[in-house]
């Protein structure tokens, strides 16, 4: 009943897929043709039109059409290639690519792959129908489907060309005739499968239910047990199942790592899940370009792999988990503890690590990683500025020491802003930047003793109900003004400024 972490392939499924895609490809080709003819005439069906359409049904014509189509596909692929090359060229001109040498090697690789693909395609002729089908569609990396919000580019006029019964019959008849010969050569079961599929029925059985191979069955059973025990929170048992499962060579770790993390999280030894994630990052991180032409049937990219343009899910999970872990371990310790220092070091370590990461491809383009980076600094700034709140009673920090610490906090606040800005620049990522803005202000206020606990708590409590409409100022503006503000602060820490900041803050409050 659950997804099996292995790739199930055998002759039967291969034959089925082949038949299906051959039929689909032919169907869509026919459809394009019919659509084109109706498009060009764009009028009521006249005797001439229907005569032309009837002609289509002839066998001889069909062969021609096939050839034309082949040629068409080929031409299209070449066009695509040139287009891509041009794109890459322009990108390099703009300076988006990281280094010219890398690109070249990459493109060479790709070309080799493409050539391979084409050669095999030519050799086998029809066999690569599946690849043909997959080539037509963009393969998303981050999610299983392509998601778009209905934007202007996306919106089109309503497609009003009705698919009538007769039109469809015409398309289908031809395509069915096309697959008749391959159908003769396949097994009875597959013939039934195809016929039902072409009638719009759906298979009730899945490949997993038909497999009789002992080892595969074993894996299927183990997977089911793993899922059920995780859902029932039987962690120790789940751990044993997981351990058994990952020792089987065929099992793909990439597709079940989440369970490993969850199980290790709930076992007494709490840090091991982080170690596991780190290990995942080291072993499975890939900086290769995501090749659209490859049929990724065995490994599905979202949740499983990363590439040059896509940070693997386990990497971000690792970062978030370690950040949250840091924060949680700091929480109970008092600020001036030795333990605290250690944890603080861990946070610093994490910051260092991310700063290294963001220099390399998948991470430097990923807004989320930048956001994590900013969050780290936010946490750091929070911790450091908190010292000032406590100092109100103790009065430890004076003079130079105090100035240094203030500078530290301001440095981190500055980093938060910079990285958030980068994150926004990368785009595609939503940040509650107004909230962070308020928080940063609060940190600054802490430095000068005039903390506004009450207000802050209100903000934090009322956070869930924050009014949406009031969020007008984009982060960019605030950042600009604050940069100046920051400079003045660094130079001169006069109480007037302090007050000004406060006023500014309360203004915002009232506006809200």
């Amino acid at each position, binding site marked *: 009943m659950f997804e099996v972490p292995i790739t199930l392939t055998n002759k039967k499924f291969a034959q089925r897929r082949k038949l299906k895609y051959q039929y689909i490809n032919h169907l869509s080709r026919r459809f394009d043709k019919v659509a084109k003819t109706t498009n060009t005439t764009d009028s009521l069906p006249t005797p001439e039109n229907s005569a032309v359409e009837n002609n289509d049904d002839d066998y001889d014509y069909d062969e021609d059409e096939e050839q034309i189509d082949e040629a068409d596909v080929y031409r299209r692929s070449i066009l695509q290639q040139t287009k891509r090359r041009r794109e890459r060229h322009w990108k390099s001109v703009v300076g988006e690519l990281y280094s010219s040498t890398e690109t070249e090697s990459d493109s060479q690789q790709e070309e080799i792959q493409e050539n391979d693909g084409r050669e095999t395609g030519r050799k086998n002729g029809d066999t690569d129908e599946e690849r043909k089908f997959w080539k037509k569609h963009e393969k998303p990396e*981050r999610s299983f489907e392509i998601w778009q919000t209905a934007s202007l580019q996306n*919106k089109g006029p309503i497609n009003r060309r009705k*698919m009538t019964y007769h039109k469809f019959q015409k398309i289908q008849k031809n395509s069915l005739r096309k697959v008749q010969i391959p159908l003769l050569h396949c097994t009875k079961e597959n013939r*039934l499968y195809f016929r039902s599929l072409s009638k719009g*029925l759906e298979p009730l*059985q899945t490949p997993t239910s038909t497999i009789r191979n002992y080892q595969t069955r074993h894996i299927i059973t183990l997977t089911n047990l793993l899922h059920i025990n995780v859902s029932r929170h039987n962690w120790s048992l789940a751990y044993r199942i997981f351990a058994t499962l990952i020792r089987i060579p065929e099992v793909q770790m990439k597709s079940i790592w989440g369970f490993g993390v969850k199980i290790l999280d709930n076992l007494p030894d709490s840090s091991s899940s982080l170690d596991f994630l780190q290990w995942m990052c080291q072993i499975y991180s890939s900086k290769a370009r995501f090749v659209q032409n490859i049929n990724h049937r065995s490994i599905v990219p979202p949740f499983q792999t990363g590439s040059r343009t896509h940070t693997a899910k386990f990497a971000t999970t690792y970062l978030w988990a370690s950040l949250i872990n840091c924060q*949680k371990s700091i*929480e109970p310790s008092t600020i001036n503890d030795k333990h605290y220092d250690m944890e603080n070091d861990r946070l610093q370590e994490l910051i260092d690590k991310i700063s290294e990461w963001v220099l390399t491809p998948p991470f430097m383009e990923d*807004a989320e990683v930048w956001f994590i980076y900013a969050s780290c600094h936010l946490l750091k700034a929070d911790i450091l500025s908190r010292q000032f709140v406590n100092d109100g009673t103790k009065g430890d920090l004076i003079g130079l020491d105090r100035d240094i610490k203030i500078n530290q906090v301001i440095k981190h606040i500055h980093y938060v802003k910079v990285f958030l800005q980068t994150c926004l620049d990368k785009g595609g990522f939503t940040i*509650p930047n107004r909230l962070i803005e308020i928080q940063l202000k609060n940190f600054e206020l802490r430095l000068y003793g005039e903390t506004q606990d009450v207000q802050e708590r209100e903000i934090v409590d009322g956070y869930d109900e924050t009014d949406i409409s009031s969020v007008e100022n984009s982060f960019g503006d605030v950042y600009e003004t604050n940069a100046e503000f920051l400079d003045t602060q660094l130079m001169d820490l006069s109480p007037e400024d302090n007050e000004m900041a406060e006023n500014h803050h309360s203004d915002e409050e009232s506006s809200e």
Partner: protein
Amino acid sequence: MSEGQLPGSHVLGSQLGVGVQSASLYRPQENYSTKKAQWLRSVDDTLPEGALNLHVVAKNVLCDTAIRYISDDKILQESDNDDDLIASDLDENMDDLQNTSIVVNPVAPAVPKHVHFFKKVDIDNDPMFSVNCYVPVPLQDYIPSDLLHNLKGSSQEGASSSKSRQDTPFWDPTVANRLEIEHIQTASDLRNYRDGTEVIAYASGKTNSLLNVGVLTRQDTLHLNRHNNVTSIELHSPIRSIKIPRTSESIGRRSNLVGVITENSFQIFRIESIHSKSCDVVITSSEPLYFVEVDDMQIVDFAFNPWDLQQFATIDVRGNWNIGMIPKNFNNNKRKLQLIDNLHGTIFDPEELSSWKKIEWFSQFQRILVFDRSKMIEIDFINGWQAEVVQAKTWSNIRDYKRVDDENGILLTSREIIIMGASEANDAVRRISWKHDLDPDDTTLKVAIQKVKMLDRLLLVAFVYSMRHNHIYVHAFSRKKSNLFQSLGYSTVLEISNGASTGIEVILTLDEINGEEQGEREDNGDNNVRVVVNFSIKLRNSSKIYYYTLSNAQTSKFNEQEKFVAGDCNEWTLLFNNADSREMESIGALISQIKMKESEHISRIQSLVEDENSHGEDKYLQDLGYRLSMATNELLESWERTRDENIRSGSMSYSKLENLVEDSNSFTSIPEFVSLLDQFFRYYKDQDVAFLEFKKLLRFFLHEDVPDLDIFYNKLLQCWVLVSPQAGLLTKEIVKDIVWSLIRLEEPSLFEPIQKEITQSLSKPYQDIIDSWDMDAPEEEDESNEFNFNSQFSSTPFNGRSQFNLNSQSQIPTIKSSQNNGLTRRKRILKTQTQKVASTSQSTQNLSILPDSMTPAFTLMQPPSSQISFVSDSQTRSSQRARKKKKRIRGFG
């Protein structure tokens, strides 16, 4: 931070799965001591871990689609066309059913008598043989052989197991749900400010062509109305899908429509009124919209506009959608559903083979979502644009979509459960997703949503189910007031156990109509959130619709009501469902009586516990013995007195011991009781009174020999000690009850005259049989003979012969069953011995015939030598004879 409050990808929102973390937000606080979470995560960690540990609290049968419920009145208005016979094919006017009684569908079709099965029929096509003149048609019908073959195959399949039937490799995705439960509000409900009625609509009948509409009542759980009044309408075509619209909350009323797709038409029914007492439903219907009228394309799905009760949308098998209008009332001649001409379009995709399509309204009056397996397209039919929001051509497929409310919906793909919401521009955006890890190739996955209101949030519990197994995958999303969606971060798997049927056909959830339970569902303690979820479920291959109540409450914390519900959910409730008020009263009285008895019993037991240590028991037992003997004496005397009458009337004189004395149970010591009984038996046996040997009867309780009552008691106690802390006492009570009710006594001397009389009245042969029956003496003799033979046999090598002698001797028909065992056993010994003794030629020959193993298969072999055949023959005969004997004796026993 406009949409949602969680940081995340613009387009994708938060992607979650088991063990996967998504973007979170750090919320610094002044004091670490405050309980508030420091992080705002996409996983809602404010709910306790066990919030989703649902288990079944109650389960009852809502109704059974195999039963045709009675309805008294004619509900449907007579159609204009009276001539049903002629018009039945073309114009499917609904007939009223002749609802005479509850009719359960016959299991197998009756085969007419004159149909004969031939293996093969050759039809000569040669024109030479074609008959030109009149020939009487033979009275035998012809059935094509391949049809016969198919039938045979299917019947074999059906007979072999339900599993093979389940393995039919394909299903039709256009058959959506043939069952719907929803609140409706009729016109009079609206006028009287009534909230509405829960109505069930389902398809039934052999071909699922019968539309049934019934009113449900809610008493603790959901039931069919008291009168079992279900209105049935024959549609003459298999029903594929039934839907009752859910309207938007903003318009403040509910619909009263039922939409039905059959094999050849689309039709809308309106529930005009519901009689509150008899639960009669008055239904009018629109004229069916035949697929012939809409380009011969089969409509596979439809939706009702939640803001406009008169607008609907349909989509056909190739993806052509159309908006239509429902006429205001179906009474007059304008009952036709109108498709609006310029509001149509298509999402046809040549790459899409499956005929699964879905259409649903989205966040606005003019926005619809249209789905096929690989696309979700948002369409604004007023402003005339469409946009492809989801394209699922590669790694996943769309499986199902459910509208949650005016803003949100849940999309189920083959890999994820996705919450979709409307952005400020009312466009569909993805908010949060949960990777469910179910088999991505399972095409039958569907989802049902139950909203659970809590104080500060709304819990959306998603049930993902499949036609392939009985498991429900449960995941929950919590939604804060600010439209912030969070996942609960884990999911559970529920198993619905129900006999042989595998796969869930449909799960339906019903929103609570009134928010009053909100208070009840709030947090009891800090970390204890009670979640109660209800749904109705119909399993594949099962005709029953069940109503389940699930809760995450711990069993110890059940309140009284729930316990009652749980206890009630057996077959009895089903039986009593149909009872009227008078019957209910008497049932109630019965139950109270039972309860009274029970409490009496328990109080007695408790008093016994207290008395156990006091020494009044000996005295009591003595007294009991005395009373018993007195009563027995009296009885015997009375028997003596009425002896002659008894003989004449032929009545028997025996009595239960239980009837003799009253208050016979107030003691606890079983050994004492045993000794009392022993003394009692011994005493009366001397007086020629026979007792039933109850110890032999006790054997049937435990399936083993019980030498003593004490042991019987101990064994029972072993079984029951786990059940109750008072098992000891209860067992004692039961043992006493058993003993008292088992022991009977009689006086054999009284029976003798009766017996004599009866025997004399019999004819000769029967008398002989009866005489031979009681002959014990020869049997013993025979047994001793056998033993002699055995000893003889060990000394003599001529085993075959001696055995034969024995067999010929023992032709006297007086062998008893106990002897049979002995005989066969001895024969075995004989065989082994034969194999061992190798000194004589005969035995070696014997060895050659007898198989190595001990199987008695030697009778099947035809041995070559006559001598040996003789031996084996005799053996067969003897064994046969023994078997025969056995039968005869068993017949008497």
